[in-house]
Each structure stands twice: as C-alpha cells, then as structure tokens.
C-alpha cells in the first residue's frame, strides 16, 4: 500500500509527522507522531511548588497561560488554597485574551492558507471585492493596496515564507471567487495586528506574552488600576470587533465553498473538556465552558482526572510507564526506532476510562469542538444559539452531528471565539466595577504544605491537566497531560488509533504527493 508522509507538518506549534496509507484516493490508515521530547516533568522534580508555574508554562509558547493556570491550580489544590474573587476575574480575563489571540492566529496565520490561495487573489477585481465584502457582511480593508502589495511580492519571485506552497492545488475550492481570496488575504494581514492587541492585554495584566508572570500560587500579583483596565478594555473592544466583523463573517463566507469538508475529518466522535473560565462557585461543571465528557451518542457525564490513563506501547518510554493514571505517572524515555508497527511517537497514548481504573479507555478528542459540543449538549444558552444559527446558515439546521467533521472543527473554534469575546468584556466591566467599590482581594497568602493536587483546565487547543505531588515542600512528582497529547495520541494498548489518526481515515486524497486534505484535517486540531 502506498504511504504518504508529511514531515514536518508546518504551521503548527511544535514538531509533528503525519503518515497515511492511501487506497483508491482515500486515506485508509494513519499514524501521527510527536517528534520532540524535552523532559519537563524531570526538570520540575525536586523543585519548589511555586516554581512550577513559571517553568511548566514553557511547554507551549502559544498556550502558556493555560499551562500556567493548570500548574498553579494543581499547587493550590494540593495545598488547599482558594484564590480570591479578584484573582478569579484577572485570571479569566488573561485566559480569554489568550483564547482570542490563539483562535485568530490559528484561522488566519496557520489555517487559512489551506483554503485560501494567495495567487488566486491576484485576479480579483477591486470594485467587486468591495461589493462582495459588503454583501458578506465582512470587514472592508484597502483592498487595492493589498492587491498591489501582493502583486509586487509575487512578481519579485522571492516568495519567502510562501516558497514551495501548493499554489493552484486542485483541492482549493475551484468556484470560490478571486475576490473572496483577496478579502481573506487582506484579513490575514490585519489579523497580525489584531493578535498583537490581544497579546498586549496579557502584556499589561501578565507582564508579557508569551510566558506570563502574574498568576502565582494563591492568586495574582497584578493589582489592577482603572487606568490599566481602560487600556485593556480599549484593546479588547478592538479584538472582539475583529472577531465579529471578520473572523465570523469570513468563516460563513468561505464555508459554503468547502461543504464537502462536512463529510470527512470527524474522528472518534468522543469528546472531553475539563472546563474553563471559572464562575464564583469555582465548580468545574459550572464553568462558562463546562467540564464534561461524551463517550457515546450525545450523553454527557462529568469528567474526572481519575479516569485518565496513559499507554506507551507505541511511545518511546519504558514499558512500565504505561497503564497509569498521571497522578502515579512516570516519564522515563526510551528511544528505540521509528516504526509504525511498534513505537513511533514521543507522545503518550492518553485515554479516558468510563470507569476509573478499568479498561483501555476511550480516544476522546479535545479542543474547541469538544468544548462547544459539551456546552451545547449541556444547554449553555449562548453556545446553543451560536451553533444553531450557524447550522442553519450552513444548510444543516437541527443537525449538530455534522459538526463532527473537518469543517465543523474549524467553525467551532471561531464560534467559541465569538462566545468568549462577549464574556471577556463582561468580566472586564465587572472588574472595573469592583475596583471602583474598593476592597477587592487578589492574593491569598499561604504556607507551602504537602499534598497532591490536579489542575484541570482548558487551553485554546484542548484539555490540559497538571498533576503535582508535594512532599517535604518539594515536588516529588509532576505530570502534564497537554492538549495535543490527547489529539495526536498514537495507538493505545489495544492498537486503537488516537483522535487525529481516526479523523484522517476516509480523507479524500487527490494527489498523494500533495495531500492537501490530510494537512487540513491534521491542522484543524491546532496541534
């Protein structure tokens, strides 16, 4: 059987390889490999619980806020510390800024080039582009200037980051008008500026981004002032405006040309979310995007980290590292060789057991699609409204099951951005109200005490959990189950594929040398 390999898969965070078997133009089998091992868990061992927040967030330069929060929550859980209300809002706002930053960056900077061909934009008629933007309800830019810049760029023959791109690939929607390609290119450029505003919010409230400084164990070091929050509000308003006037209408304008993508790329149809954005109750199942797991049909249960198990049968770790809950987890690397029949990834195969401690577990997808499906099934009203109206716009009213697809995964991310955008402004207004009232607490002083704790939270790309064991005031054990670990998991102990591997099955491949749909499906997870 012919194998097609994409290595490196670019336009992602980190290093990844995709290998697929193609039969009669359809992917019949797939192997996904995480190709980097750094050893965070070993580095954190024997250090102080308060240091983990700073170091562990460096796992991911695109989602450090979520890792930092999961780490500090793990320490707080281990030590029995409850953060004050002011810190809850500050953390929610910083987290929201990162989600908006990440989702905008994914759609325009990382994902768009799989659907938008910059060369096609060259033949756009400028007047028609303005007319189309108006008809689609999307943001107007100086389309003439963008076209001129693009033309000069292409004519230079020096394509820089566009070198060797798959221009003119037959799997770009052939009927998508040049004018729509040009609109997307204009917004690709504008998105670079807007993501900077989202990141600057974290800069103000977190010290810098990526890698932030303020969400220390016990709360936050950031004590807001009205002046700083005014600056933050101004930037949020710009970012949220871009989400509503570009990201959402662009999604709805481009999607109709890619409706076949509702028919593949779905995967296991099993979903997990630890939940993110706390309410005053700090209960995971009451979060704005709630905790929940779906392993069959559309029945949602509360998800517990006790039910997580990791397998290493196909991962480069010692065999006795397998079959363990991360709270007992071990990370002892063992390089053998790359073999899809044996071990082929630095990622462990993480699974969700419907009964803790029993069975191999389910290959659950994590990420925006999982969170939005869980919230939809749980009846979170704004999410239900967003999804129902989008389904109607895509010609599939009342059929939420079509979301379990490539196009559904892309759309869910952007709808989530719209939901979070609205929430972020609410939280900010709430926080401004608080500081006007005075007497808000941001930090809970505490002693370092021994114990075990888990911080289970969500990053833009999916569920993140940090497991910390404190003994004698030092970290005796630390394990991280990162979002991408779930989605790019290799086969488990039973040889069952991971979520991305499963999603690749059935993907149409027109050109085995240039498997555009394969990279679309892989990137749709924002790995």
């Amino acid at each position, binding site marked *: 059987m012919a194998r097609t390999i994409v290595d490196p898969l670019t336009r992602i965070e980190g290093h990844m390889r995709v290998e697929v078997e193609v039969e009669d133009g359809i992917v019949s089998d797939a192997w996904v490999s995480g190709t980097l091992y*750094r050893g965070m868990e070993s580095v954190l061992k024997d250090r*102080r619980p308060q240091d983990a927040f700073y170091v562990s967030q460096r796992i991911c330069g695109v989602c450090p806020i979520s890792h930092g929060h999961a780490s500090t929550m793990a320490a707080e859980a281990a030590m029995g510390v409850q953060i004050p209300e002011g810190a809850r809002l500050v953390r929610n706002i910083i987290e929201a800024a990162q989600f908006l930053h990440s989702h905008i960056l994914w759609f325009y900077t990382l994902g768009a080039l799989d659907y938008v061909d910059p060369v096609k934009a060259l033949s756009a008629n400028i007047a028609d582009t303005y007319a189309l933007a108006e008809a689609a309800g999307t943001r107007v830019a100086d389309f003439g200037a963008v076209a001129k810049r693009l033309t000069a760029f292409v004519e230079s023959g*020096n394509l820089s980051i566009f070198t060797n791109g798959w221009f003119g690939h037959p799997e770009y929607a052939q009927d998508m008008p040049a004018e729509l390609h040009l609109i997307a290119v204009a917004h690709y450029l504008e998105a670079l500026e807007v993501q900077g505003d989202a990141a600057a919010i974290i800069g103000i409230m977190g010290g810098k981004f990526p890698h932030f*400084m303020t969400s220390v164990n016990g709360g936050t070091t950031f004590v807001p002032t009205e002046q700083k929050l005014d600056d933050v509000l101004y930037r949020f308003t710009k970012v949220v405006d871009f989400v509503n006037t570009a990201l959402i209408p662009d999604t709805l304008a481009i999607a109709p040309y890619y409706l076949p993508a509702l028919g593949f790329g779905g995967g296991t149809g099993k979903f997990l979310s630890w939940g993110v954005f706390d309410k005053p109750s700090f209960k995971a199942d009451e979060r704005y995007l709630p905790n929940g797991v779906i392993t069959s049909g559309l029945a949602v249960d509360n998800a517990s980290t006790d039910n997580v198990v990791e397998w290493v049968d196909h991962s480069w770790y010692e065999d006795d590292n397998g079959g363990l809950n991360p709270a007992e987890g071990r990370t002892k690397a063992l390089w053998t060789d790359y073999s899809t029949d044996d071990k082929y990834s630095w990622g462990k195969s993480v699974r969700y057991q419907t009964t803790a401690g029993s069975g191999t577990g389910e290959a659950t997808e994590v990420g925006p699609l999982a969170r939005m499906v869980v919230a939809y099934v749980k009846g979170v009203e704004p999410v239900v409204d967003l999804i129902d109206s989008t389904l109607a716009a895509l010609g599939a009213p009342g059929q939420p099951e079509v979301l379990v697809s490539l196009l559904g995964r892309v759309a869910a991310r952007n709808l989530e951005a719209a939901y979070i955008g609205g929430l972020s402004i609410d939280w900010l207004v709430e926080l401004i109200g608080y500081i006007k009232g005075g007497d808000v607490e941001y930090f809970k002083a505490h002693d370092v005490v021994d114990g075990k704790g888990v911080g289970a939270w969500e990053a833009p790309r999916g569920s993140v959990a940090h497991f910390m064991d404190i003994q004698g005031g030092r970290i005796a054990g630390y394990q991280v189950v990162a979002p991408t670990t779930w989605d790019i998991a290799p086969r488990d102990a039973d040889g069952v594929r991971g979520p991305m591997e499963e999603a690749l099955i059935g993907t149409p491949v027109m050109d085995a040398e240039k498997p555009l749909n394969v990279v679309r499906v892989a990137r749709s997870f924002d790995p």
Partner: protein
Amino acid sequence: MAYEENGALQSLLAARGVTRRDFLKWCGSTAALLGMAESFAPQIAAAVEGAVLQPQAPALWINGGACTGCTESMAQVDTPDVATIVLDLLSVNYFETIMMAQGEDAEAAKADLVAKGGYVCIYEGTVMTGFEGNALRVAGKPQVEELPEVFENAAAIVAVGSCAVDGGWVAANPNPAGGIGVLEFCKEHNIETPVVNLPTCPVNPEWVVAMVIDVLYLGALEDLSVLDLDEFNRPKGIFGQTIHDNCSRRGHFENGEFVTEFGSVEEAKGYCLYAVGCKGPQTFTNCPIVRWNGRASWCVESGAPCIGCGSANPLEAGGNWVDVNAPFLNRHRDIHVGDWVTQPTVVGAAVGAAAVAALAVHGVGMKAAGRMDGGAPYEEMKERDAKKGGGK
C-alpha cells in the same frame, strides 16, 4: 519585493500609514537598542533605505527543541508596520511555524538555501542531542544531523531565546533530553560562523529586529566588531546593564519601600519587589527600557518579580536561568553576577550589607537599603553553587 525606483521606502511606508517622522523615531529607538546614540538614527535610516533597493536578504528560521514562544514573540514586535518592512527585507525561505509549504516541499526550500549559503540563520529552541539526537526528529531523522551544514553555510547565526543560547529550561538539571545551546554545538563541531546570542524567555522581538539590521545593513558581516559583543556573544548595548539599573521601581528600592506580600497595598503602590525574590539586580537585560508586547508593559510593572529568564551562560553547563534563579520567589544568599557566585555571610532582616557591597563592586550599583521586615525567605546556599565553590 522588487523596489526599483527611488522613494520606494516612502511609498511602502505610506501604504502602511507610517509617516516619515514615525520611521525616523523608530530608527532612533533602534539606535538606542544597539547601544548607539540616537544621532545614529539617520545612518540606520540610510541603511534601511539602501536595503530596500537590494534583493531581499535570505534567511532561515530553524526551530529546535522549542515551544514556539520566540516565534510568537516575533509577532508582538512594536510598530509592526515599520518592523514588518524591515522583516520584509528578509526572504525567510524556511520557517516551520508560519511557512506555507510542508513536508518534503518545506525541506526542499531549506536545502536549496543551505546549498547556496550566505544566509542569516535564526535558531529558536534548544539543540537536542539526547538519544543520539532523536529527542528531536525532523523529516525522519535527528535534527542534529543536519545542523552542522546549516550552521556552517550560514553567514551568521542569531540564537534567539535562552534555549538557543545555553539550552534554557530544557537544559536544567537533570537535562534528560541532552539540551545544549547553539554556541556549544558550534564549538563541538568546529564551526566558526559568528553567533549572536539573544537570551530571555522568550526573546524580545525588538532585539531581533535590531540585530537583523546590525548584521545585514550596518556592515557587521564585513566587520564583526560592529556587533560589539560581550564574552557570552551578547550585544553589549542590550545586555550591558541590569534590570535593577533601569527599573522604574528603583526609587522605591532607594527609599527602602518594599512589597513583602503579593496583592498588598504596597503592591498597588508599585513598591520594589526585591523582598519577594526579584532577580532584577543580577539579570542583565534592558527589559525596563524596551518593555514587552509593543512596549505595553513588562514583568515588574505587572507586579511580578523578575525571574531572571535572561540569565544565560553559553560557556558553562548549568548556567541556564532555571538552575541559577530557582527558587524564583525566594531571596538568594548566593548571588550570581555572570558566572561569579557569592554568598554574603551576614544576612539579617535587612538587605545584607555584604551582598550590597558585593553587588556594588561588580558594577550592579546597588545601594544599601533600609530595614525590611517580612518578605520572602532567604534561600540557603544551593547545592550546585556549593559544588562550584560559591561563598568564597
């Protein structure tokens, strides 16, 4: 892009809404970054304008054992319009995180340029030597197998972020994946390509822009002394002073006004963070001046003590910022200034007089502060420092 007529830069600037005045202002701050007087601004402007008329300079951006944070950071550069112009002057033919191509086509773009040579190689992340280099595999083989040729054929290497400088957190004890910095890798392989080190985690994007200008347009390739690097291959203009030297909270230090608990009234007033473990006095970067995220803020301004992510020692294993500065929120009795370690013998409730004196001797320029009650605990001599003979 091909710019053939005079005034090409002006029309580029105009197309992006940048005035000539903004541009010159930016050139002035770039001059300051490079450690030059602002009066050098016209020379920088001339260099950039001249470069617009040249073909784009070729570059590769290589991700090693990276979190992609330095790439992320590059997206947060100040005055993006002007900086983008500068970066547009580069043709970055390989850049995994944002390039359009993938797989073999991406690798081909890299191979073409490596064969031609003469490019600037920007390296992000740790060089992964563990498991015979299999700790990082790219295109089906260990990345370290291709690095000697990639580095050898480069005109210059810019190591961005602490990981690229000395392995960063990846190289922290016990360094299970065999992480090292670019300079060490080059030395091991007798590669003499000049390496410019830009530590901090992630790299501050303004420094990268400044270095690109320096390397490409101000003649550094012809005469390396233009770069004015210190013994760690860091540009002195950026890494010559401590954070403490330029800190906006320095006045509070002088007045003996300290934060002893996060979220406190003192924190709201913006008092000095030294008592909660700030590593500003021993960390050599110009963060307080350049700031972060389009100059929106920086760590200390958000109430967080510096953790010294810019500490890096490419000449000695174990000099990474995590091993040197953790535990981050404790005050250290053993104080690092470069590779020099001391442990003052007299430490009380006040800032240890011996520490202050020692810091002053080594040019950190700290003055005796008033009494400090409360604050973070002092850290006893750390094991690794004791082994290295600290405290003498």
